């Protein structure tokens, strides 16, 4: 009690705390001297700690494999050319390509090619494995039944460690997919250590860049809900297959349709 009173006496509070209702920004923090009060320093530090832990979190390969199997989806466990997080952070090129073992694995179990549209689904850790560990399966639980209803052929799901978005292009090529959906952990923000991003690419092939993709961002309970994300993803997949495009061209179409 004494400690609390002393802290209150030392800290200049700001009489505009009511403005916090308008923004999530860290306003009206008060001060001691010119410094930010300790309580806020610790809360900031904790948010940063969560973000840092998310960057170094590991994909829970076995539990995810089990959960996906329950959904009826066979799983390939793959790894990029980036050996570890240290290399992953400094060599984005290596995070975009599969290592030799993973290539051999995919070449080995290729199903015979058929002309109907096939969807490759990739789960990659990206910059927050936590996001994938938390949100990928709940999202797929909503999406898979929608895709099965329209008889889309689903290829085995790939779980990729140390992967970036573009690694989906190589995997999808090896799987002979028509379209690839990559679920990946986004760069953690201070208030969002577990934000999942989704990238859709039509006729994926190695060497494509961001303008060839459509993106759904910030999938997590505090952001875009699983249901809303699944609905949007389902719509994008159908439109992409129908119009045979993805990326900037599909976005333009989206504008026209909405307008």
């Amino acid at each position, binding site marked *: 009690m004494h400690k609390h009173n002393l802290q209150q006496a030392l800290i*200049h509070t*700001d*009489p*505009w705390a*009511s*403005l*916090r209702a*308008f*923004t*999530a*920004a*860290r*306003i*009206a*923090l008060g*001060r001691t*001297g*010119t*410094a*930010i009060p300790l309580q*806020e320093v610790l809360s*900031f*530090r904790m*948010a*940063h700690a969560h*973000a*840092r832990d*998310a*960057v170094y979190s590991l994909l829970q390969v076995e539990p995810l494999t089990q959960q996906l199997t329950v959904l009826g989806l066979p799983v390939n466990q793959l790894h990029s050319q980036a050996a570890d997080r240290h290399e992953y*952070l*400094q*060599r*984005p*090129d290596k995070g975009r390509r599969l290592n030799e073992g993973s290539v051999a694995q995919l070449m080995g179990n290729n199903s015979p090619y058929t002309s109907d549209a096939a969807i490759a689904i990739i789960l990659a850790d990206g*910059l927050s494995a936590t996001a994938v560990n938390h949100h990928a399966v709940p999202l797929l639980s909503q999406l898979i039944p929608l895709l099965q209803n329209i008889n889309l052929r689903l290829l085995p799901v790939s779980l990729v460690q140390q992967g970036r978005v573009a690694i989906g292009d190589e995997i999808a090529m090896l799987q002979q997919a028509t379209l690839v959906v990559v679920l990946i952990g986004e*760069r*953690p*923000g*201070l*208030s*969002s250590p577990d934000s999942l991003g989704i990238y859709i690419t039509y006729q994926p092939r190695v060497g494509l860049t961001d303008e060839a993709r459509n993106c759904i961002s910030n999938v997590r309970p505090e952001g875009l809900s699983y249901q809303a994300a699944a609905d949007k993803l389902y719509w994008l997949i159908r439109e992409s297959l129908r119009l045979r495009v993805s990326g900037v061209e599909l976005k333009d179409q989206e504008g026209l349709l909405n307008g």
Partner: protein
Amino acid sequence: MIYNTTIGNITYNFIDLKTVLAKATPYRSGDALAGLTAESYEERVAAQIVLADIPLQQFLQEVVIPYETDEITRLIIDTHDTQAFAPVAHFTVGELRDWLLSDAADSEMLRYIARGLTPEMVAAVSKLMRNQDLISVARKCEVVTKFRNTLGLKGRFSVRLQPNHATDDIKGIAASMVDGLLYGSGDAVIGINPATDSPAMTTQLLQMMDELRQQFEIPTQTCVLCHITTALSIMPQAPVDLVFQSIGGTEKTNSSFGVNLSILAEAQQAALSLNRGTVGNHVMYFETGQGSSLSASAHAGVDQQTCEARAYAVARQFSPLLVNTVVGFIGPEYLYDGKQITRAALEDHFCGKLMGLPMGVDVCYTNHAEADQDDMDNLLTLLGVAGCNYIMGIPGADDIMLNYQSTSFHDALYLRKVLGLRPAPEFEAWLMRQGIINETGELQKVDKQHKLLQSSW
């Protein structure tokens, strides 16, 4: 020219000037990613030994990107001022370093030679300098610019108030603006990074800021950091004080940003014709950052720090009010940790100042970089000593729209206090009239009745 040196029984041969520059650069992840960095510690110092003996004249003979294929090389060569170059024309890079640190190179002399130095010369000498050297030479440079107030005077230190909001909510942005103003920030500019780069949204944000500025008679300028073509599309109707653009140091980098020298010139003319400045007419605001050329696959084999210095040649062509390097935003594949970010920031600040630019620094990092607020505190303090014109002021250092950490209003107050620095004079007088600071610059207690808090919320 032949670039080689022998260390022990190894002879190091460097094929051309750009290779010497790249290999002489202190280690950073971006140059390693581009495959340009020295292969050993010894090779790096060997390259520095070679670099030290290269005459500055050689930089006018051997360009790092061909004149024929790059409009920035053409700009650098065609605008080189031989008269300004004369006092240093006989130096090697190494002699330039020693001269810059001598008492002969005072503020006036440094201002005189600025247009005689090409970005490659400035980048080259910075590679030979320790952090201490970068600080003490930059500190001697004074670059003053004006629009509605006077920025960059010795003993002054300004802040860009950055009131971003994830969905461009007008009240949310206004709340952060009021917070920043009451903490003494906003003299460099009040500048919003919009979440949506549309003409309608940009106009709406500009109008809101302009009304607030006029209502409280704040001697500062406002800016929405939209793409330059968006700004062009809304002038002259919208209240555009400053035209913003991200720029890089190669023609191809700028193409990836959707700009070129002629668009920049067109925008500058459009903003000048609005005649909105009161004490000066510096109407351009540029952001840069090491790594942007590599990121756009447009570095042409030139190291990222030399590319960055070339961006300053673009900037100075348009007499900007503000230039800042967004040093830690690009990520660890370009600048891995606090050490690399700190070094890059001091290089950028030095190179920009020596070339005559009003340099600020966004002292910042992302959550996947090996850095934290302690690194920012260190860098902030170093830059204050180096005489940096301004930093960013963001509520609690946490940008909720761009998702990165920079510096806070509190951080700016800390620096002003420990180094005895003051806001821009016109803005300082306004802060005193508002009862926000007293004559000694101390923050005053503000009550609920303060008129900045009486807007229609």
